[in-house]
């Protein structure tokens, strides 16, 4: 691996001295295979001499065998090879390549341009400082150019290189280049992309890649490599207000309490006033502790450990911030979601959200619109599919510190994680907090849940009966309610009959509607618990995630999941409403147990097996459980 430097042979120590002061630039290349993206990356690797002789020999052999350049070296082969992997069923989202020059080390995120494009490009763009957008000079600005540019602007990349490639195929014509650049700039301005450097080039012939081309004397600007080496990226990051999301609390002994994290914006020095978010407490930075001696300053991107002058409560997920310019704190946001999973995004469904080191529960309360990534048009939508982008309202289960993503990627970007599969299903960018959450203050009234329940000689709770249709949920719930009434308790029963015909009559049986159905029932239950009632809910509620959502709406101990367990065969035999028969005949779609799954509870408070237990016996068990849990005494 020989860098292009005579210093290596002549004075290696001087060479190392030069190279230890290199900076790092991460960039992404956008374009399809036809635009010559792989050829450009391959040539950058080749020209910076990051290719070994054995690799070069293999490249030459491959070029003769499968290359597209008539026996000449096909640089694309250096980075391709993705087709074979795709055949093996390996998901490639982003491949990372490395090369370096005297001035910089580069990390290139290379995303294969096929159906997974949006997801992959967003992933690669999330860590990039700059984007190289390739345009085929023969074709000009295409819909995909717009799509790439939209994602680049969305992910907050400020620097764009517009690489107008294949200039050799248009006779190195100045007018062709100017026309493309003018059209692109007009479009990019609307996206808010400002720093655009347009370079006419040919990756294939090597014009303006690393060497200035003498075939385009009308061009006076830098080559691609010259620009990548020189573009200034860090200044802005350090001028932002200081942020340190606390990743880990370092407590080796009683005397030391350090807060470890990676600086996400700005600069920090001992003596600086900092605020802890979300608590709002203030302190001063005492030390920035490092193995080789305390630091006098730490900047954006550095992983540090600092101590504070006062003993304030700080834990993982909190943000230490400049006292004069702290981030906002809110629990309702407008965000853009990029959906990354085959399982579509459903408003109302609870997800785990990870923002910085903080993990919490969140859900989309409203999908405002979907964005057509080719035209940027807003389209009405009820859900987001894989690779779709939408603007949504988001609600978190507690207030969190945040910045707008445009101001700070680290404190404004987040991922969504599915609670059951643990997959990363989406990525989100915070735009702003919805003021609604600030204005709707919960009033701590003197008459509260406890007072209302005590008045009725009970503690309020929800008995959530789940199970297959025909398992006996409503029958048992009715018996339980009668007994509670006889005991002088105050109850209310919610089931399909009284909810589906009124409150939820606008809902059908699609997956999205079933989620919304359960969400409304859960919210109504919560209000009734607040009113001091014992609420009996009988719904098939087949999905664990929705039952968990209901559980999480309530306080600890208020939600009792009652699994009314019957085999499908037994339920189908009973078929009290004749529904299974219709489902088998295909007259009812999405019927639980037939063509829609039932996910049994894993940790139900009660399991009632109604194959070997009568409804009366089951009701007794429920009453006993309530009594045992102390819910029948005020």
């Amino acid at each position, binding site marked *: 691996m020989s860098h292009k430097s005579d210093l*290596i042979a002549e004075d290696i120590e001087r060479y190392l001295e030069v190279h*230890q002061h290199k900076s790092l630039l991460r960039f992404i290349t956008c374009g399809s295979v036809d635009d010559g993206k792989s050829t450009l990356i391959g040539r950058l690797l080749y020209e910076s001499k990051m290719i070994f002789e054995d690799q070069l020999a293999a490249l030459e052999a491959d070029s003769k065998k499968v290359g597209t350049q008539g026996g000449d070296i096909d640089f694309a082969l250096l980075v391709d090879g993705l087709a074979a992997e795709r055949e093996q069923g390996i998901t490639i989202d982003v491949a990372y390549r490395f090369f370096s020059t005297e001035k910089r*080390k580069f990390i290139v995120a290379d995303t294969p341009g096929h159906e997974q494009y949006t997801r992959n490009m967003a992933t690669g763009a999330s*860590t990039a400082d700059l984007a190289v957008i390739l345009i085929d000079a023969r074709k000009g600005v295409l819909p995909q150019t717009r799509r790439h540019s939209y994602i680049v602007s969305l992910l907050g990349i400020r620097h764009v290189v517009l690489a107008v490639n294949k200039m050799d195929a248009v006779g190195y014509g100045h007018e062709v280049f100017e026309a493309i650049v003018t059209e692109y700039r007009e479009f990019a301005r609307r996206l808010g992309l400002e720093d655009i450097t347009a370079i006419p080039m040919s990756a294939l012939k090597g014009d303006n890649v690393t060497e200035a081309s003498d075939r385009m004397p009308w061009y006076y600007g830098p080559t691609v490599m010259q620009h990548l080496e020189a573009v200034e990226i860090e200044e802005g990051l350090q001028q932002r207000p200081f942020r340190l999301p606390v990743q880990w609390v370092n407590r080796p002994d009683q005397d030391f309490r350090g807060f470890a994290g990676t600086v996400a914006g700005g600069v920090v020095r001992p003596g600086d006033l900092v605020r802890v978010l979300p608590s709002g407490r203030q302190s001063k930075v005492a030390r920035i502790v490092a193995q080789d001696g305390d630091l006098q300053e730490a900047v954006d991107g550095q992983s540090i450990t600092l101590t504070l002058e006062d003993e304030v409560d700080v834990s993982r997920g909190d943000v230490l911030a400049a006292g004069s310019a702290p981030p906002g704190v809110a629990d309702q946001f407008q965000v853009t979601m990029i959906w990354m999973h085959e399982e579509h995004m459903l408003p109302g469904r609870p997800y785990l959200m990870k923002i910085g080191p903080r993990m919490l529960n969140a859900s989309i309360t409203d999908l405002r619109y979907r964005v057509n990534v080719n035209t940027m048009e807003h389209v009405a939508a009820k859900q987001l599919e894989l690779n779709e982008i939408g603007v949504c309202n988001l609600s978190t289960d507690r207030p969190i510190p945040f910045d707008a993503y445009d101001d700070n990627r680290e404190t404004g970007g987040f*991922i969504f994680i599915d609670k059951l599969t643990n997959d990363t299903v989406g990525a989100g960018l915070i735009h702003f907090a919805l003021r609604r959450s600030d204005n709707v203050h919960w009033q701590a009234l003197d008459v509260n849940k406890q007072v209302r329940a005590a008045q009725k000689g009970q503690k309020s709770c929800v008995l959530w009966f789940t199970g297959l249709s025909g398992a006996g949920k409503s029958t048992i719930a009715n018996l339980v309610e009668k007994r509670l009434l006889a005991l002088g308790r105050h109850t209310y029963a919610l089931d399909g009959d009284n909810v589906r015909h009124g409150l939820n009559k606008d809902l059908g049986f699609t997956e999205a509607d079933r989620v919304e159905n359960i969400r409304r029932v859960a919210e109504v239950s919560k209000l009734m618990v607040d009113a001091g009632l014992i609420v009996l809910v009988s719904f098939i509620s087949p999905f664990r995630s929705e039952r968990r959502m209901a559980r999480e709406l309530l306080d600890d101990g208020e939600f009792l999941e009652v699994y009314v367990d019957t085999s499908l065969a037994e339920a189908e035999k009973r078929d009290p409403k004749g529904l299974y028969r219709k489902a088998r005949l295909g007259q009812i779609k999405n019927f639980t147990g037939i063509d829609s799954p039932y996910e049994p509870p894993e940790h139900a408070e009660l399991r009632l097996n109604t194959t070997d237990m009568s409804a009366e016996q089951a009701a007794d068990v429920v009453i006993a459980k309530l009594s045992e849990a102390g819910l029948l005494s005020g």
Partner: protein
Amino acid sequence: MTTLTHLQRLEAESIQIMREVVAECDNPVMLYSIGKDSAAMLHVAMKAFYPAKPPFPLLHVDTTWKFREMIAFRDHLVETLGVKLLVHINQDGLEKGVGPFTHGSAVHTDVMKTQGLKQALDLHKFDAAFGGARRDEEKSRAKERIFSFRSAQHRWDPKLQRPELWRLYNTRKHKGESLRVFPMSNWTELDIWQYIYLEKIPIVPLYLAAERPVVERDGTLIMVDDERMPLKPGEQPMMKRVRFRTLGCYPLTGAIESEADTLPAIIQEMLLTTTSERQGRVIDHDSAASMEKKKQEGYF
């Protein structure tokens, strides 16, 4: 304005990754192979948790065929740094006498290294293991995630791998599943050497040229490190000035003739050299098994 160098940025990224694992996983471990990548990784870990010691043990899966100098170096380093080291040997393989000379490199590596690693991870119930692999090592690693998911059987399932955005890593897993975490993913071989040089990180002397007894086998120079090396009739170890570009089991690691006996000299030699790093590893040439397949089987 302070501008971070590329090594400072890489170090910061690696530290962030290590801290994330410690904060979110129950029982992490750092795989320590004694080589230069492990040396750099361990050095980063010492910094990441300072003034505390790294809150996880090191694990060395010993195939019993490592260079003697590697083992001596390992034991000395662990004592100096005050970190905890676990050494695991596949006892089953040892009893069956599995070794590279008797069973070939593929079987030896599978039994003593891959199986040994799985045994150790199961035995201690580690839910996350740091490895020193880099994306620049070969083409197929370029797309590897930093957090790589393994099933309860330690298999790598491409469908289980998750997109990694910003510095956000999803470490959630079900019971029995585990993570392989590669904090040095974005370093190149040159970065590692430069870091070792700048930070004065101790490395096994085998990386530096010295007179060593070697024999030539199929065009590869193999060091006669102990008496277990079977010599062919008439074969005499020759003293040559050699060094190693990678370290592993001595019968499987080719030496190169070299005069480079200082760090700048070996960096110089690496930069001027014309073959890639892995060529010294016999394991890659053996059989048609690709790294991809080995990974699916649980080789790190």
